[in-house]
């Protein structure tokens, strides 16, 4: 049989035109799948969400029996408050720093515990490394306060190593507090990324690595060109969740530094709490909350748009 200029078979790209496979049953099917989740979220959260927006338009909510409608006055006040902007700046530093920390440590450790080692050892290391996640925030905060105390273990070790002469006040020095908080937040948050990424890793077909190895790819090359692209959906989802989560992370910051010293580690979530439950200014707290909502929503729209492009 002549085989000369036969085109080499390539997978038909026709499906590229198809937006997505649809299970072509009754048109309502996807809604049925979403229904239970949306009903629960809608029933329980739409009223509270609405109330928060409403609070932000009144003065003295909760404290006063008849709060007065003040329109956007609270927003004007909040936006004119330098404390809000500095908390916003701290939030960005804290969120971006934490997420980067989570990602680097989490992904790095996921790769390490995914190595081909004895299954028992793997179980051991995986379980040990998830430990920072399973203690409640109060305990985490208090424990780190112990470790970072001027007379705590860290200073003791650093002193013993001759790295410092005076104990450092890790949580009380305005120049160090945010860094310390980032370390704590990274420690606390990496297991989520590690576990998620580890799960994602298992779905990468081995053939892809083999193919890359034949092409002479080294570890980094495989990571960049096989692992990461393959896990994009997982990474994007997890990163978004981590970002939103960290953006309003409250208990850890509040219990570790209380936003201090001064307001050096005050983030929007602690500011919100301070306004609500220290100052009893619930309307202003709601205003800050809505501003957080707007920022996060804008970010999420961008994310979803990007996701749509990827599909």
């Amino acid at each position: 049989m002549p085989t000369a200029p036969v085109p080499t078979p390539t997978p038909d790209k026709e499906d590229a035109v198809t937006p997505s496979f649809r299970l072509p049953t009754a048109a309502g099917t996807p809604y049925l799948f979403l229904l239970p989740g949306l009903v629960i979220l809608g029933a329980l959260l739409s009223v509270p969400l609405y109330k928060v927006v409403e609070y932000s338009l009144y003065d003295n909510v909760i404290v006063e029996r008849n709060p007065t409608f003040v329109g956007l006055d609270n927003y004007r006040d909040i936006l004119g408050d330098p404390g809000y902007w500095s908390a916003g700046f701290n939030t960005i530093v804290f969120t971006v720093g934490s997420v980067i920390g989570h990602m680097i440590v989490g992904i790095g450790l996921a790769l390490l515990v995914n190595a081909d080692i004895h299954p028992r050892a793997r179980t051991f290391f995986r379980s040990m490394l998830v430990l920072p996640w399973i203690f409640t925030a109060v305990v985490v905060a208090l424990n780190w306060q112990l470790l970072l105390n001027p007379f705590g273990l860290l200073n003791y070790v650093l002193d013993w190593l001759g790295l410092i002469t005076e104990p450092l006040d890790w949580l009380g020095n305005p120049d160090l507090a945010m860094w310390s908080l980032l370390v704590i937040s990274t420690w606390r948050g990496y297991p989520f990324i590690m576990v998620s990424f580890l799960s994602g890793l298992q779905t990468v077909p081995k053939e892809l690595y083999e193919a890359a190895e034949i092409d002479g790819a080294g570890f980094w090359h495989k990571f960049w060109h096989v692992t990461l692209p393959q896990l994009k959906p997982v990474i994007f989802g997890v990163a978004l969740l981590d970002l939103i989560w960290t953006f309003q992370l409250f208990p850890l910051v509040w219990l570790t530094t209380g936003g201090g010293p001064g307001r050096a580690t005050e983030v929007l979530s602690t500011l919100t709490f301070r306004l609500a439950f220290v100052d009893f200014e619930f309307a202003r707290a709601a205003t800050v909350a809505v501003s957080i909502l707007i920022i996060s929503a804008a970010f999420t729209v961008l994310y979803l748009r990007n996701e749509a492009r990827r599909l």
Partner: protein
Amino acid sequence: MTDAAAPRHVVDEERQRRWRQAAIYAALALVTFVMVFPVLWMISVSLKPTTETFSLPPRLLPDDLHWGGYAKVLTDPKFRTFLLNSYLVGLAVTGLSLVIGTLAAFGFSRYRFFGDRVAKLFVITTQMVPTITLLIPYFGVIVFLGLYDTLWGLVLTYLTFSLPYAIIMMNGYLDTIPKDFDEAATIDGCTPLGVLVRVLLPVALPGIISTAVYTFLLAWNEFLFALALTRSMDMRTVPVGISMMVGEFGLKWDEMMAFSVIGSLPVLILFMLVQRFVVSGLAAGGVKG
């Protein structure tokens, strides 16, 4: 290749492999020690009388192990109630989140439909308002539903926190599974639900596990709502129990850490058991990519 070279090559490769293994173990041991150290310190604090925790120089192990914290926590039935409540709530939230969340994730992953992005935005938006500002109005809803001071109230509450995460995470995992499986199963006679349950879920097992772990720990660690939405000692959870030890006039360090350690042990064991399902190759051989 000469005859002599072949065995040497094999030996080299074997040696290289062993070195690699040794390096991996060493690296793992080192990072694990660093990461786990703060937890070791917690255990240390739990085994010391509080005065020793604050004496200098700091020591990891006291001369005499102090079991007072553990004794107190293990003998007081209150703490058993806290633990039991936390596990019940955690498991219920995990189960419900997985079922409801996976269904929704399947909808998002496998269909394009009118309003899909709006629905997704809503799901995510619910998590964007700092929960502390939602506390008071949400509290009202729970009271309205008659779930105040019940474990169901907590389950439902944590469900609202965990569902969006479960949906987004499962959506991500399902997206990594080729749609070819759906088509094959549809032709084979599966309903869409059948596609999800019979074909996709076995492949998505690692994703399910990590979503389950996330969900469980979210419920396990939550404090603010647990405190506000319950008031009987019978309905309280571990974080609330722990915070009770932070008193106006001092802190029971040994008891607090002992309770944390005891409470976390079953969680750790649970994780050890389920992490075995986080293995590779579940989707291998299914499709030629």
